[in-house]
């Protein structure tokens, strides 16, 4: 979250800085909680794809004094947060699972969430596929450590085939809801799946293995995912379901699509945390120095 002209228009962005959140997405989790009371009685919590850490901040503040153990996992390094154990690790790695279970003293988790999203390319089908892979990777780990009846919350992009995911999740949870917090822009495809009441598939023993793809991982779970057919025949369309939609947050809350006029001369606030360097940092520096070849 940089220090930019966004300050002027996005009230959530500004409020995040004022209230010390590392990203405006903190409000999304707060609004999801408002609707679903997600934090009631949870003590073992996992935040996946956690960097820069705004959801962990929310969890830490909301669960303060409740003797909760919060683990935040990301491939990127994260600035520490009070009351949160941050680990820099791959969520598909069996060691990561073991580390989390060790922190929980062998107990299962009550709540797993993921606000992760890949960089989009602009090829919608590829982007949706990669996002689905990210959710499935989070779900893999979740099925290995979530207690029956537990909750899973993850960011989704509502596009083609989102109804396949809804259908697959409905095999694993009592209730699957597509929730849209008011802090999430209406113009964005972003929403959150709130999966309540984990019900492990009978007879299925999920096991993380680096040699197993997400498709192979869920093969035995029988959740309506199409496998390979003989001679690669085009499968009949897979099971699709439409999850119930719930808008979250107070209707009188700040509207993330609206334009607000702020009083002039308000100080621009320093960001709570500087953004991490992008992979193309060197290219930008070269461009600035005029070292990029144009012709």
């Amino acid at each position, binding site marked *: 979250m940089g220090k930019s002209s966004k300050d*002027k*228009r996005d009230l959530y962005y500004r409020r995040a800085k004022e209230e010390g959140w590392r990203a405006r997405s903190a409000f999304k989790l707060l609004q999801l909680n408002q609707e679903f009371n997600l934090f009631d009685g949870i003590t073992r919590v996992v935040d996946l794809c956690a960097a820069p850490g705004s959801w962990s901040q929310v969890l830490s503040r909301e669960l303060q004094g409740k003797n909760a153990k919060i683990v935040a996992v990301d*491939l990127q390094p994260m600035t520490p947060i009070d009351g949160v154990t941050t680990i820099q690790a791959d969520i598909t790695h069996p060691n990561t699972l073991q580390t989390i279970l060790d922190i929980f003293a062998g107990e299962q988790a009550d709540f797993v969430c993921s606000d992760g999203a*890949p960089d989009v*390319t*602009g*090829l*919608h*089908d*590829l982007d949706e*596929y*990669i996002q689905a*892979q990210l959710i499935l990777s989070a779900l893999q780990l979740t099925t290995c450590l979530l207690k029956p009846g537990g909750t899973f919350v993850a960011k989704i992009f*509502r*596009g*083609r*085939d*989102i*109804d396949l995911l*809804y*259908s697959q999740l*409905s095999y694993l949870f009592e209730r*699957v809801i597509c929730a*849209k917090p008011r802090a999430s822009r*209406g113009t964005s*495809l972003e929403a959150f799946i709130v999966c309540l009441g984990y019900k492990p598939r009978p007879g299925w023993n999920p096991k993380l293995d680096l*040699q197993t793809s997400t*498709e192979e991982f869920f093969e035995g779970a029988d959740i309506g995912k199409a496998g*390979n057919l003989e*001679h*690669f*025949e*085009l*499968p009949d*369309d897979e*099971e*699709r*379901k*439409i999850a*119930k*939609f*719930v*808008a979250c947050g107070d209707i009188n809350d700040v*509207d993330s*699509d*609206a*334009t*607000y*006029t702020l009083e002039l001369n308000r100080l621009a606030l320093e960001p709570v945390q500087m953004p991490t360097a*992008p*992979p*193309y940092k*060197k*290219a930008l520096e070269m*461009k600035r120095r005029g*070292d*990029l*070849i*144009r*012709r």
Partner: protein
Amino acid sequence: MSGFNQISSLNEVEFAPLHHYGPVTALKIYKNYVLAGYGPILKIYQMTQGDLLDVAEVFCKQVFSRNKIHHIEITSQGRLCLSGARSFMVLDLEEVLQGKGNFKERAINEWIVTCAFYENWLLILNSHNVVYKVDLASFEFDKVHCQEKSILYSGSIQVLDNGTVYVAAGTVMSGVIIWDLHSRKIVHNLTDHEGSIFGVKVDKTGKYIVSCSDDRSIKLYDFASGTVLATGWGHGSRIWTLEFFKGDNVKIMSTGEDCSLRLWQYQEGNSQLVQLEMVENCHSGKHIWSGDVDDLEYQVCVTGGADGRIKLHDLNKVNRTEYSLQEISSQTGLVFGKKDFIRDYFELKDRLIVLISNGDLVEYSDNSFKTIAFNDQHKLKDFAIVKGFSDINIVIIAARNGDLLIADFTSDLPQLSWIQDEYLGSNKLTNLLVYSTDNKYYVLVDVPNPNIPFILREFDSSFNLVNVTQLSQPNQTSFTTTDMVVDSVNNWLVIASRYVTIAAYDLSTTSMALFKKLSPGDTITSVQIITSKTNELALLILVKDGSYLYTTLTLSTTFHLDVTHANKLTKGFIEGGYIKSNKLVLYGFKSSYFYIWNETCQFEIMNELCGGSHRQWKLAPSKFIYVKDKTTLVIRNIAHRFVNDGLIHLGTHGREIRDVAVSPDGKLLVSASEDATIAVSQLEDGVKGIWSMNNHISGLQRVKFLNSEYMASSAANEEFIIWKVTQSNIPLVKEFVRLKPSAVENPDLRIMNFASIELESNVFILVTVYSNSNIKIWRIDLNKEHYGDMVKLLVNDFYTTCCILNVELLQKDDKTWLMIGATDGYVTIWDVTSKLDPEEHKLGASIIHQQLHQNGVKAMEVFTHQDGYRLITGGDDNALVVCDLQVPDLKLDIVGYEESAASATITSISVVGEHKFVTTSVDQIVRIWEYNEGLTCLSARYTTIADTGCSASMGSTIYIGGAGLSSWKVNNL
């Protein structure tokens, strides 16, 4: 959770797809064919070498039901594999071209990265770095992997002549893995990049590897050692395609998000890849997704973009010859002084005539220079202008005193003679204009003294002087002439000048009219006749600042000039242009570059880094000639190698389309895109782009027709433009008026939507709704001339603080209602009957305020029904609501409700017949609904237009916009 989603596919035959424009996701050159993955459609083009290389479509068919073709693989025998997402298909090109192809779509349960043929197997690399080795006879398979199942963004398979098969895998986490298919061993794990790997290839000899990543660099590695040999920096954003040249494995082509095509070469010992060529401005918007290169047979590159365009590029080296003054001196024996320079020149059919500043005249032909001798050379010493008529081999050189040297090159021996001036007295000539039409050749002489008339000389085709006309200069201090045309139908002369001013003369009576300040720019650089008929002349006027105008000059008792079309290039100056088979071509300078630009099709034809416009330059049909450092003549050939300058397929916007509208007569489609342009297209045999209007600078929201003559568009930064549309053989469009924004500037303040009703001819009640909850009602009288009379604000009020998404105006029995739908899910109606007189009102209390959706009312359509209205709304909450509104109190009854009408946001509703309407939603399913007692989905069909965001209907045809544009016919209405 509601039941199974049965409305993702239902009675698909009710929809018949007509035309589709969208991302070109794969391209392959094979022999004399170009194969294109146009989303799910396979297009095949045939190249035919005549005088020009022609490329014509020979095959087009949607081969995948849902998935896009991301990769095309073909063997030297024409065995073809298409793949993309989870789908693949094996074909024989010969059979396909003969219409006998067996288009059997197959699928695996994973994303396919690439595929390749190896002996009798098809190798399919999936996104988990696993290769399916598929027996092509039985379609039985083995899975082969290298123990490293990282998620891949990219990958390729190279089968070497010796049978070795290398899999090159580009992972999401900065690594390139090269592994051997047979041994299943990892050969290299290359970690030199940062960020996701978007492309990796091994050359066909197995000597090099090339890769690109999110770090925006291209790296070439030595295969044997896995060390980086050279890195190529230059792309301004991500790189999507990499191809080795077929005949030269140290040359590479790349394309990317920055819409550039770049050619690179590795030179041993140089740690930087050398950029040989860079082609920009060949696609619109963002992303060249696909490309291929043929450096063996046709010397071409082909690229395909997010704009749906397919474009050929010439690989041949640019032909450029340079001659310094010393060179000219040594060839001719002429002696030039230290301060001498190349004054001016003129290109004839077979030679170039060059005037040196000392008055020497030389002729350049067959790569050599020779002197042209003539009398009174001293007259051309300090000043001269060289013009001519190449069709009759005439060069005209004007001297300062107004004398004209005529050089006739018709016969082998040039004939040179002077025409002595009799008109200018002691005044000095400043400009010489020439024009020919109908075998008449006109030469006009201009002096700065406004009391001295222009001298117009008319010659015949043997260049005998036929007539001299003296024309009074316009009565203003400085009328600097820049260009002229003579209309032979009406015998009119039009002279262009600075300050975007033109003078029109009737040569029969020498009466004159002056038209000043036609647009805000400075100098008119060129004026041209588009069409001419009795008393009506269509003129193209080009302005240096990048503006171009289509105008109509008419004469009744006096001249009248009407601007019918006005647009401005976003960057670059215009020096000239022409219209060729209804395409507008413009040329000029953009910083240090000279460019030629096809404005109709939006691509650059050529460019030349010449240093800018302050030098001497001239454009001939196949040459651009300019002077470098005042003393070096540069002749840059323009090789017109391709039919249509290499445009194989014209697409649409290069960014997401936010709104579409069809003109009331059904002839035009206008679209508003995220790229801030409004495109105007003709609807005949598809959607044919004509104009790309650049007047908006902010993100567009909506575009609609107000009536058959006017349309309007709204955008961020409070931009609202009313356009006038003139239908002729091509539609003409100009900004007619724009609403003035609020006093406090706010770039984010978006005019989300608008609605209008026409009170009388071209008089409207208009309502605009804003992202800050503002609602404004205006009275717009387009018959008036001045803004103050034309635009009156009637209502200025706020709804709440939330963003308003939709608005409608309803009028019945002298009553007028305003209806809005907002992000809070409510539909609100006010009776505004008493608010329509011209003093600023507040809205007052609403008469209806009803929540219909959980959040955003994304789509809203209302139409008359029985005695009242029917309202249909679609929401971000996937729901569809049908309401009836009873007149006179507009009581709202919900009569139909479907909670899960789509699996994601409903983005638009288009009415297609009585009781029937079509919805689009971001789940990429288009549905026909019927409301007749109950709400029923009649049909549902997948569209390949992602980010499906808008639609418009005309009769039974619907147009669907998003990341591309499709038209469908609705059957059985």
